């Protein structure tokens, strides 16, 4: 096919082919009036679809990557991996993420709430938070020489539980020794962080009534005497009891036989 060059721009030329079609083609150094036999027409290699498909694929990949990042971030940073209970006299429960950072601290009794009040956990490692809470307990007069600190950890990961308790005991002991408080002992509490060591009302020989279990649970949480349970469910050997007070939601399982609290959770009441 022959093409008559009709117009020349910097990058393009307008040519007329011998079938009568005017075409915009690449200007390969043409001159007006020249006849050429081989041209590079417009549109033949437009990246359009190919480019858009690649672009869409890249976007989809970024979306998946972003999702995984967010999911991973949530999983590792914002989701609680376990809890650590520190019993000084103030009883506090710390939620910890997979990376070992404290997400939240709450008091499990009245003193614990006083100790935890106003304490910021943002960006704090568990060991730092434990040392700082101990320091606060000393300065608030909750902890003196001769006292004992109990440590318990709870998580689905048994290895994490053991390791956390051991590490915290060592760290706290070293910290207290450094502070000149060698007589304060740090001991592991029971593996379950929410066990009540003893319940005065427990009557091994008989089974607790729902009201008695609720009263035991309220005492456990340090709630005022007579706080009414929002919900009590009888589940074979245990009562599942819920309280809602001061914008918090308290859930626990109380064993019928002795009033021991087997599991407890405290959340913000949204």
């Amino acid at each position, binding site marked *: 096919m*022959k093409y*008559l060059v*009709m*117009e020349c*721009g*910097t*990058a*393009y030329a*307008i040519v*007329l082919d*011998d*079938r*009568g*079609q*005017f*075409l*915009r*083609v*690449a*200007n*390969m*150094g043409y*001159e*007006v*009036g*020249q*006849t050429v036999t081989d041209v*590079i027409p*417009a*549109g*033949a*290699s*437009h*990246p*359009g679809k*190919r*480019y*858009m498909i690649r*672009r869409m694929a890249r976007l989809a990949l970024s979306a998946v990557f972003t999702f995984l990042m967010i999911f991973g971030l949530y999983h590792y940073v914002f989701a609680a991996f376990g809890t650590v209970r520190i019993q000084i006299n103030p009883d506090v429960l710390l939620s910890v993420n997979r990376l070992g950072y404290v997400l939240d601290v709450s008091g499990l009794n009245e003193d614990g709430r006083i100790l935890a009040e106003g304490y910021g956990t943002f960006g704090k490692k568990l060991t730092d938070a434990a040392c700082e809470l101990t320091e606060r307990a000393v300065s608030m007069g909750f902890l003196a020489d001769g006292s004992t600190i109990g440590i318990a950890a709870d998580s689905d990961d048994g290895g994490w539980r053991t390791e956390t308790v051991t590490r915290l005991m060592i760290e706290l002991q070293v910290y207290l020794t450094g502070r000149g408080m060698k007589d304060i002992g740090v001991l592991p509490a029971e593996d379950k962080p929410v066990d009540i060591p003893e319940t005065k009302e427990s009557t091994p020989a008989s089974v607790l009534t729902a009201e008695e279990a609720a009263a035991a649970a309220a005492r456990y949480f340090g709630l005022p005497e007579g706080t009414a349970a929002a919900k009590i469910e009888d589940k074979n050997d245990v009562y599942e009891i819920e309280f809602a007070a001061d914008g918090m939601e308290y859930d626990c399982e109380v064993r019928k036989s002795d009033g021991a609290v087997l599991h407890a959770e405290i959340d913000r009441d949204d």
Partner: protein
Amino acid sequence: MNNDHDIAAKVYAAREDARAADDLVRQYLPFIRSETAKFIHRYPMEGHDDELSIAMFAFHEAVLSYSRLKGPFLRYAAVSIRHRLIDHYRSERRHTGVLSLDGETEDGTPLMNQVVAVKDESAELVLRTAARTEIREFAGQLAAFSIDLTEIAENCPRQKRTFEACGRALRYAKEHPALLDALVSTGKLPITQLAEGAGVERKTLERHRKYMVAVLLAYTNGFEIIRGHLNQVMPGKEARTE
């Protein structure tokens, strides 16, 4: 980011106009050179390297086809350039084994010297000069219809069926010289007569009005070189001469 925004604004202003797009090509020649150099691994020379011409054309096309949905303009232009150059190399590869007249024989003699019929360069130059003068005149007459050659290229029918329909209307006009005269005297394309006479949809002709005007004009005013080139669009009959 702001820079991208400025470029996009310039491109949007130029994308409806091939000449404005050409101005952008000149403005962004350093960028085009750089993209070409990335591909050929050396600095491209204007007028010597086909790759640079192809890259300039790719940039030009990128301007005309750009939309903000395609991301930052320069990245889009870079992709266009790369694709064009890749296609060019693929096409060149298909032609490997074909000897170039610019090549040499084993003993270093230019192949061109072995071609018996060497083209007559002076005759070609005369013909080219005549063609240039005629095309300039043709473009001037088209301007009286407020049409330029770039617009005709954009307005030219691409689909085979449409192209054939326009061809039928053009043949009908050639067989009825009064219609060609009407175009020249009134400055308007006699669409109704062409549509009815050639049995072509009026809408088709309206859509390709600029193209129709250009070809009919070539057949009415003695543009012999252009007419001689159009040996297929109206086959079978000699073009009208004044």
